[in-house]
């Protein structure tokens, strides 16, 4: 199957220290790929490079065969993302935030902007609270709004950085269902980072494990394999 994401020997060095070193990852179209690693492993750095927020020191990153390094604008047209916590403009409502952001997509005609916002609000299950100020939202609602904004440009790839962070068990379950719906019903490829092993095992069909900026394992798990055991074994090596 065709790869939608391809990291080729990517490294990021800041002030003489490698945050990410020589990482190569491929994510197949239609997969839910879990980027796993302890805190400080380099997950967010990889996601920042994937979303063009920082440039790799060496190597290249391709999204739908477009280089993020040399052709950032074209490559990012296929991407919707939440990087770190979803931060919005708190003085606007959820709907106003989305309306403000939808304008930045060249591919959506002005007349269709409102319909697009309504559609992503419906997908993310936020319709009922869409006209309340974001500052009144719970973290779970902000995560949903984050996913809604990521869906605005109808991207083939969704990149979600620690989407379950801070959520209660109910919120985590709702988020998991939403992510699975996005894959199964809307045909999205999803790359998500997390340190929650159970969540990754329940959602992902491809797993990448990072430690101290280096790729230590990549692949799929059998039904009998337990991610926690695999992870602990890899970390103790």
């Amino acid at each position: 199957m065709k790869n939608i994401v391809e990291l080729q020997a990517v490294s990021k060095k800041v002030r003489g220290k490698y945050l990410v070193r020589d990482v190569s990852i491929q994510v197949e179209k239609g997969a839910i790929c879990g980027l796993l690693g302890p805190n400080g492993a380099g997950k967010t750095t990889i996601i920042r490079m994937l979303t063009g927020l920082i440039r790799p020191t060496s190597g290249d990153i391709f999204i739908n065969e477009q280089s993020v390094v040399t052709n950032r604008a074209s490559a990012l047209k296929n991407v919707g993302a939440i990087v770190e916590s979803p931060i919005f403009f708190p003085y606007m409502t959820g709907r106003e935030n989305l309306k403000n952001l939808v304008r930045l997509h060249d591919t959506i005609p002005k007349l269709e902007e409102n319909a697009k916002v309504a559609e992503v609000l419906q997908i993310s299950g936020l319709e009922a609270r869409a006209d309340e100020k974001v500052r009144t939202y719970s973290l779970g609602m902000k995560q949903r709004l984050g996913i809604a904004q990521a869906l605005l440009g109808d991207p083939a790839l969704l990149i979600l950085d620690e989407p379950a962070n801070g959520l209660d068990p109910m919120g985590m379950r709702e988020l998991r269902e939403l992510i699975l719906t996005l894959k199964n019903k809307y045909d999205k490829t999803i790359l998500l980072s997390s340190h929650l092993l159970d969540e990754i095992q329940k959602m992902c069909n491809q797993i990448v494990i990072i430690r101290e900026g280096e790729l230590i394992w990549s692949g799929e798990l059998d039904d009998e394999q337990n991610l926690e055991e695999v992870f602990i074994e890899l970390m103790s090596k």
Partner: protein
Amino acid sequence: MSKLLASEWERLWKRKVTWLMFAAIPIMVYAAAKYCLHQNNNLSPDLPQFTVAGNFPVLGLAEMLMTAFNFVVLVIAAMIVTEEYRSGQLRMVLIRAHSFQQIIIAKYIVLAGFIFLYLVAYFISCYGMGYALFSNPETYPQFHYQDHVTLGEGFIYNLKFYGLAFLTLVAMSSVVFFIAIVSHTTTTTLGIGIGFLLISFLYPNIIQLFQQFLNNEVVIKLFFTSIPMIQWEGLTLMLAKSSSLYGWMLLVLSCYILLFHLLIILVTRRKSDIFI
């Protein structure tokens, strides 16, 4: 770029502070009018400082320009640059294929647009308040003009004054934008910005203390290297019928704009490769 501009413009007007600043215009104009009315009690109507309806838009702006207007520019820059950038709100825009430089350019244009509207609203309010509170002679004296000016000539003069005031605020925006980009908090932006204004008020006065040791022309030129001083006294000199300082002050304002734009370009280029 047009979509980015529209998005930035919309966000600016979604803030309560923006509307409060506009709502403050009649209060500012009224305060300026009260001050001018008080000054009129001690002035002869033959003096250009004597306020009438025709010259109130200029006399009512002079002091407000170097204080309130500069502060408005500072607050807006702190809100739309430092706050959005440092809180991480800009990430939502950055991951939509816009570079940091493009966003900063859009924000700068939005601020210039806001200043323009603010000056237009202030100009109209001044004319309204001027006709309501001051006498309306058909001719009146004008700064650095030998003859009195008619209401029509005065209106053109006022328009030129506001045009130059806009230019000084654009120069001020360049300085403040640079401060807003490099500052880590809005408090730092406001603090450094106010510091810049205070130094700009102070050093021209200190230079004047050395007037006896320096060439008079040098002192005047150094005095008008300060944006607030250009706003306070320089604009009327620039509009004098025979002004030798017009070119100098235009050069100073251009230098502020060019120098700080250059610094902004250097900083934003560097920031494209560090953590946002």
